[in-house]
């Protein structure tokens, strides 16, 4: 089933022309997490080239888009200069939008959400809060039980969050961007 519209959206948002990829595989050859992905980067490109809905959904539902670390080895070496990392960013947001999420995405999304929440109110990262919220979101109560106190002892953790003055702007930024999108989905 044709699904070209999605590919056009992808191109207009990221500038990635999927048809430029001639499947040399250099991205995959150099990808540090290719072996952990359901589909390595070049395979993702190929799936996109088919332009079918099935394959698009396959990608959104895969862990590939979540495991991509945006280390940009692929982009740095791609003979066609295809911006796969940017494309992965886009596919992640699409996966969230369409709510097609691979289990592996859970801890990663939870971390990102915790991270963003912690800066949303204070303007700066509150690491202790981040860890706490992350644990709450993922029920990984026991994780890093030793590290956190050690960090604290080494003066690497604040007990209280640092707050910036102009928190209005921060609120506005979040309201007009990420939360804006959330409401769209509802």
């Amino acid at each position, binding site marked *: 089933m044709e699904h070209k519209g999605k590919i056009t959206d992808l191109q207009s948002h990221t500038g990635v022309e999927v048809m430029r990829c001639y499947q040399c595989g250099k991205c995959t050859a150099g990808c540090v997490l290719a072996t952990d992905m359901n589909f390595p980067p070049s395979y993702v490109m190929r799936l996109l080239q088919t332009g079918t809905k099935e394959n698009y959904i396959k990608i959104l539902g895969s862990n590939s888009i979540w495991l991509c670390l945006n280390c940009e080895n692929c982009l740095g070496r791609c003979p066609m200069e295809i911006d796969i990392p940017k494309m992965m960013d*886009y596919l992640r947001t699409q996966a969230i939008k369409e709510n097609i999420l691979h289990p592996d995405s859970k*801890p990663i999304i939870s971390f990102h959400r915790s991270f963003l929440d912690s800066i949303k109110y204070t*303007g700066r990262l509150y690491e202790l809060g981040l860890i706490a919220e992350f644990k709450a979101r993922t029920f990984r109560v026991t994780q890093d039980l030793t590290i956190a106190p050690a960090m604290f002892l080494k003066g690497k953790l604040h007990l209280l969050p640092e707050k910036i003055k102009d928190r209005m702007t921060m609120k506005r930024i979040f309201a007009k961007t990420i939360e804006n999108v959330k409401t769209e989905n509802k």
Partner: protein
Amino acid sequence: MKIGFYPGCSLTGSSREYNESVVAIAKVLDIELTEINDWNCCGATAAHSMNEELSMSLPARIMAMAEKQGLTEVVVPCAACYNRLKVTQHDLKDETKRKRVSEILQLPYDGSIEIINVLQMLEKYGAENIKAKVTQPFAHKVACYYGCLLVRPHSILQFDRVEDPQSMDELIKVVGGTTIDWAFKTECCGGGFSVSRTDLVAKLSGNILEDAADRGAEALIVACPMCQSNLDMRRGAINKVIERPSDIPVIYITQAIGLALGIDAEELGLKRHFVTVEL
């Protein structure tokens, strides 16, 4: 030398020693750092993984604040922040994106500020001038680890060579050290997965440590808090997955230079590391 300064969140928390060492060497080299007023978090990986506009708006505010303050050049020690600011600056050359962001911010932004990393700042300061101030040469054989965010995407950052970069090695040589030619200078350490996927971080950081160790490095030199915390704080997890557990310390370029400048280890925050530093 006067220059604007954006520490970023990790330098006030988990990577305090980076901040301390930057400030310490700046003092000795009499570089005057002017911190950006009321700066906010750059959003890091979380923002651009979740929402493009957010990922541009947060750094845009930082730079807008700096402009408001009349700064023309800002040094950003954290490689992640450096990367986010540079990339945002590049993306906002696009008129429509720029319009959108400024209506979100409701702050004037003209993208005129020169964003540089610590290595660039020290290069600017001048190898000779640094050499002149060295009191105890940093006589160690080390592996300079650049990671991803300092050098990629090359098309935007235009900093050093995309593979096998040299600028950090040069600085180490300037302060009396020797650097090894190794293979993992720019391979990813696991970046933002430190908490969410510690297993992957252990695997990737493991490869890096092993190669450095095999080639006889006494220490890893870094310029990125994420790399540092992955390689240092996560050493327990790493040592579980690599063949030969390693106790190589992971120190910041600014700490290495600080030692050479005769600054006390305490002041450079060398006591804050998980893997004890005995250099």
